[in-house]
């Protein structure tokens, strides 16, 4: 690990993102059996904005609206009226309901003849992937939420230092977010100490950074030599405090908090890598005198932000 150069490690980041995109496609989908009465609802998912697609293992005999009961996961006693039923080939049935549905919510569907039922919920992996991609690309902390700018502009002059910073930041981000999540869930929330959030989280962040610095110095001196300089800078990065605050505000579960931390860290790595590459090229450009230094860097960040707006169309739960 010590001789793994940061620049080479960064080349794997886009690969990892592509691999994550491909993951849902690898899930095995059971083939529907032909003939007979259906024994199970094989698959159920929400189609925006008000339709639900059910996949039975055999064609369904009764496809009138009265045969289905559709409820929200949070209100199982109040059924949502089914307005239209459309059966497709291979035992698939599409229900249209009188309410706008959200792909990230949980619903429950019951069939009275034959008696079958199933939860309609996005898979946990899908949810985590959404949180991850949203924090890394769609709501990139640097380009759309403007956080961590001090370090983003300060450490993006050379690719090598930028990538070192990005990797250290991602690792520390995961550690601090996990400890802050634990403190928030097990200490602050049970004792209604929410008003101490700022004070406690900044303390947690500082303590974790100090701890990692000491640990790394003793156990992996070579690694500390490479990445130690960035560790102390990290406490002044607003993202490191913003992620615990966002997690606490959303009452995130542990996996959600983890994927938000990982996504925001990798998003920062991506942003600072792109920026440093562009700034190295700009050394050769002739910039107007008044724009030298930070102003042109801001204009550059603006162009990147414009490009990142394209990611806002990404929606995986559709």
């Amino acid at each position, binding site marked *: 690990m010590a001789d793994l150069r940061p620049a080479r490690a960064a080349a794997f980041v886009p690969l990892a993102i592509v691999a994550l995109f491909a993951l849902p496609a690898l899930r095995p989908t059971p083939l529907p059996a032909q003939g007979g009465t259906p024994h199970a609802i094989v698959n159920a998912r929400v189609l925006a904005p008000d339709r639900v697609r059910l996949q039975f293992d055999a064609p369904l005999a009764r496809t009138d609206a009265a045969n289905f009961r559709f409820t929200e996961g949070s209100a199982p006693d109040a059924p949502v009226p089914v307005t239209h039923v459309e059966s497709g080939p291979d035992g698939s049935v599409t229900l249209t309901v009188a309410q706008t549905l959200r792909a990230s919510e949980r619903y429950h569907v019951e069939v009275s003849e034959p008696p079958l039922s199933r939860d309609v919920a996005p898979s946990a992996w899908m949810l985590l992937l959404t949180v991850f991609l949203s924090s890394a690309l769609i709501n990139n902390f640097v*380009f*759309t*939420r*403007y*956080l*961590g*700018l*001090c*370090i983003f*502009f*300060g450490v993006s002059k050379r690719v090598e230092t930028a990538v070192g910073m990005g990797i250290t930041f991602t690792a520390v981000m995961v550690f601090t977010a996990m400890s802050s999540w634990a403190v928030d869930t097990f200490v602050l929330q049970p004792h209604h100490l929410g*008003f*101490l*959030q*700022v*004070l406690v989280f*900044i*303390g947690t962040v*500082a303590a974790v950074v100090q701890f990692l610095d000491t640990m790394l110095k003793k156990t992996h001196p070579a690694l500390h030599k490479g990445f130690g300089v960035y560790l102390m*800078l990290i*406490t*002044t*990065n*607003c993202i*490191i*405090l*913003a992620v615990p*605050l*966002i997690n606490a*505000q959303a009452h995130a579960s542990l996996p959600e908090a983890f994927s938000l931390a990982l996504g925001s860290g990798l998003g920062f790595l991506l942003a600072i890598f792109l920026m440093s590459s562009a700034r190295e090229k700009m050394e050769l450009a002739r910039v*107007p*005198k*008044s*724009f*030298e*230094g*930070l*102003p*042109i*860097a*801001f*204009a550059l*960040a*603006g*162009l990147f*932000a*414009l490009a990142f*707006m394209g990611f806002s169309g990404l929606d995986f739960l559709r």
Partner: protein
Amino acid sequence: MSDTAPPPGPLQLLVNGILHENPVFRLALSLCPAVAVTTTVLNGLILGVAVLAVQVLSSVTVALVRGAIHPRVRIPVYTIIIAVWVSAIDMTLAAFFPALYAQVGLYVKLIVAFAIIISRLEVFASRQPLVPSFFDGLGMGLGFLLALVTIGAFRELLGNGSFAGIALVPRPLLFFALPAGGFFSIALLMAFFNRIDRAASGGAKRPAAGGSHHG
């Protein structure tokens, strides 16, 4: 700025914070909120007031207790002092301006990680008595407030066609209200201040804004 040097006068300290060492345009410190909340003048104003209050209160607190802080633990102590005042200001704003707070709430909490505040404590308030520290904090806070209001006015006028909610221009350029527009606005304003500064100093070589990075 050693212990023996006489502290500058209050007026000089104020002008220094607003012009020569303006936190946003000259020192390029604490930029995150400067881009994030400045879509309108009012948002810029409320965050500017919060920073001003935190800066003055922390400077005064540190100046009062500076004799009692051991140099080796000074940074954690400063952080705790700032965090306490940020929590207080955060709750005050949430109670009195709930509508505005809903938009800038996260950034008010993040004041605790602002480099500008802790750097003023380290550079100035930990070495100077109460009164100069107060004026230094006031100058820096006002400089930050003015910068935020300037950027906010620029972006609201161009992006929304209004000033403090009063419609002025019929066909605004939505671009400036978007995230990317925030970056471009700061680039243009910084270049503008650089230009003025170069003209004022008669072309004499002065470091460009943001030449020094302090985290």
